[in-house]
């Protein structure tokens, strides 16, 4: 479904029904931001796994690689949902404390593993 509403186009940018949200590219930009975050998580995972293997922490390397790959996938998937579920014309854009809290927790976990691996190298 078109997140800017059915049939919305550049020509509609200045006109919208009262009570409806105006056509906007905000959902697209937000989806892209989630995608960039997923790529960042994946990049961190590669660095952590590489450092863990360098420090002969093979089990930690494999576990963190799998976990971080899953986090990156979920992050990307969450961003894709924006087009489907959120930002539709006339509907409120629900804020998502739970999703953001999970991403924060995942980042902190990555930081903890990074410190462990850094000290072990």
């Amino acid at each position, binding site marked *: 479904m078109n997140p800017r509403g059915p049939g919305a186009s550049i020509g509609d940018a200045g006109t919208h029904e009262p009570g409806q949200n105006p056509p906007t590219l905000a959902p697209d*930009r*937000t989806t892209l931001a989630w995608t960039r975050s997923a790529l960042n998580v994946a990049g961190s995972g590669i660095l952590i796994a590489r450092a863990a293997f360098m420090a002969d922490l093979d089990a930690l390397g494999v576990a963190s690689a799998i976990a971080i790959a899953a986090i990156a996938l979920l992050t990307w998937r969450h961003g894709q949902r924006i087009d489907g579920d959120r930002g539709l014309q006339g509907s409120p854009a629900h804020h998502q404390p739970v999703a953001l809290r999970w991403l924060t927790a995942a980042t902190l976990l990555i930081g903890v593993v990074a410190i462990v691996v850094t000290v072990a190298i």
Partner: protein
Amino acid sequence: MSDSSFETGASPSEKPAAAESPHADLGDGSAGRGRELRRRRLWGAWHERRLEQTGSDLDPRFTFANERTFLAWNRTALALIAAGLAAAQFLKFNLHGLRLIIAVPLIVLGAVLALASYSHWEDSERAMRLRQPLRYSWMPRVLSGGIVAIALLGGILAIIDRLAH
């Protein structure tokens, strides 16, 4: 913008959902793990509803912009953690342990920013829903100061390392 007039008179108070207390469905203690999971799920749902019930609905663009700002800070935090890891792997000092003095503060700074970014997102969301002015963030100052301090530290350590060998 459907909701852009920030009226100072409108001061909707926060209405926490009292119906579902996290302790409402406690059993006899035999299924501790399941109960804990249920309690966490209820807490997450309650928290989300509580923020959603604060003030009034926003123009979705504000919510999306706030979310993107959070994501940008989170990426900055991840980049700092990655920089710390890279410093640990690629910096070659003669004195053992010097690289840790650069790598660990970078990772810690990243973790602090990750935590602060969530708190900042929540504060901003709440302020916007209550039609209050947004608060200035201390994060840019800490980020700039931290990077400058770590860069200076790195330079000093490189000189010490060179002089020592």
